[in-house]
């Protein structure tokens, strides 16, 4: 095996852009034909849009296809439970049944995968893992609960496919996971960014120096924080390892972007298997390189659920492949996933982005956990509080200094908006193994909620 190659798939990862786009068009034609012939949802939406597959002559014609929203997907599930009208076949054709994480409290999207689809999903993880330097002689520890949320399932099988020694770290306490990482001699650990910090905090409590452990690489996924420079720097410092960001979604079943070993400050798009458009979040006009917009994904992976022009609500900023010197022809998302279209909070006329708050908080490693809490008083004025949890033995003087500095930094980054910085009791704030939800907006809730 040519395992000295820096690329998992040198043939397509290094294609020049014109050939990459020709490959995308060839696959897109087949996918559109497939959807038009088999999926009741697309048969109806194509007819409503006046679109016929033969109109697809160039990649620009992709914009003739209607976009798909999560709301339409959910409506389709309600119309024909449990899977909706997008799938081209039912559960008899599938070997896997997964759902979205449910962290938003909404009805989950239910997805099916055929044997071929499932193999493809781990293949996408292989692009990312190999690209970040994972090799057959690695021992991987997957700190994941292995439930119905698709999460790191694809990574698990990708590790096996690469030939790494794979340790499934499901159904464990955080303390046991730390011990297992050491006992098994893990060289790679996969988790969410939040959980990577939590593992490191637990290691500290146990007197374990992770920086002295064999762990060399962390594979992060599930939250945008893997590309927040301050959070990534904190994780890398705590573990004494490099941390690579990836991002995916249940709707496609796997990752679509990954950070390569050059760590260029962005994540490569796996463009031989996806078409990623970036559009104005308030409409559907495309935005150019270097401009922030909403991700719209077309996936060549799942056969059982064709996915054409799905509006993801992820905010991204696409930059050309040349931004990275790794040799891939794949464009990048600078800073990974920047947040969600609906993430932004308006507080007394000032925009507050959770990602920006996290970037400030992570400058202070003494912070163990935090939560942003928005309330509205009887005077109808909005109040924003940052609740911060410190180690139990943190001195009062440390807290006083931190409170003053955080309040100053947050106000400076938010046009003078006053953040009330409060100390939470030890263990008071929620901990997260999957997607962290640290912003609590209670402004439309009754007082005292």
């Amino acid at each position, binding site marked *: 095996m040519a395992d000295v190659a820096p690329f998992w798939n040198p043939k397509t990862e290094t294609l020049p852009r014109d050939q990459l786009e020709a*490959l995308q068009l060839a696959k897109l034609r087949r996918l559109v034909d497939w959807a038009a012939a088999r999926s009741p949802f697309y048969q109806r939406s194509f007819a409503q849009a006046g679109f016929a597959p033969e109109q697809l002559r160039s990649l620009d014609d992709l914009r003739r296809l209607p976009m798909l929203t999560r709301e339409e997907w959910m409506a389709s599930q309600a119309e024909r439970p449990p899977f909706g009208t997008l799938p081209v076949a039912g559960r008899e*054709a599938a070997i896997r049944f997964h759902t979205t994480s449910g962290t938003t409290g909404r009805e989950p999207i239910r997805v099916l995968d*055929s*044997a*071929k689809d499932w*193999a*493809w999903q781990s*293949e996408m993880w292989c692009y990312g893992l190999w690209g970040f330097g994972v090799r057959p002689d690695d021992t991987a520890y997957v700190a994941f609960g292995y439930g119905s949320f698709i999460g790191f399932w694809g990574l698990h099988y990708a590790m096996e496919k690469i030939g790494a020694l794979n340790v499934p770290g499901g159904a464990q306490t955080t303390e046991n996971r730390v011990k297992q990482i050491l006992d098994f001699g893990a060289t790679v650990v996969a988790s969410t960014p939040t959980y990577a910090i939590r593992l490191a905090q637990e290691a500290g409590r146990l007197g374990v120096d992770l920086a002295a452990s064999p762990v060399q690489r962390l594979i992060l996924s599930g939250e945008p924080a893997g590309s927040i420079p301050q959070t990534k720097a904190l994780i890398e410092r705590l573990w004494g390892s490099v941390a690579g960001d990836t991002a995916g979604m249940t709707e496609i079943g796997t990752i679509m972007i990954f950070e390569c070993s050059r760590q260029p400050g962005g994540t490569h798009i796996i463009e031989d298997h996806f078409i990623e458009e970036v559009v104005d979040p308030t409409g559907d006009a495309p935005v150019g390189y270097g401009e922030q917009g909403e991700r719209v994904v077309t996936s060549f992976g799942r*056969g059982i659920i064709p996915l054409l022009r799905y509006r993801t609500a992820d905010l991204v900023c696409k930059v050309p492949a040349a931004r990275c010197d790794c040799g891939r022809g794949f464009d990048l998302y600078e800073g990974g996933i920047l947040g969600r279209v609906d993430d932004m909070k308006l507080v007394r006329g000032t925009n507050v982005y959770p990602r920006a708050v996290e970037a400030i908080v992570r400058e202070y490693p003494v912070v163990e956990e935090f939560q942003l809490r928005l309330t509205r008083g009887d005077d109808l004025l909005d109040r924003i509080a940052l609740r911060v949890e410190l180690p139990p033995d943190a001195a009062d003087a440390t807290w006083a200094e931190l409170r003053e500095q955080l309040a100053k930094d947050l106000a400076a980054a938010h046009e003078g908006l006053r953040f009330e910085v409060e100390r939470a009791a030890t263990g008071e704030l929620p901990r997260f193994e999957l997607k962290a939800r640290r912003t609590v907006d209670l402004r439309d809730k009754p007082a005292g909620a």
Partner: protein
Amino acid sequence: MATDLLGQTTTATEDELLDLYRRCTALLARDDLDPCVHAGVRVATVGLATVVNDLGLDYEHLIDLGA
């Protein structure tokens, strides 16, 4: 001479992969395979389908073959 999805002439290795893939899909389509044979052929077919897709040699879904 075979070509890939970009219209480029395939290499000898790619020709071999395509041939294996097509033989596997033909085998998988048969209805006289014992369960252990069918399951193994399906795994092989899925693996090769991933490879020919990666290399831009072919791109198709295998729902009708139960994969």
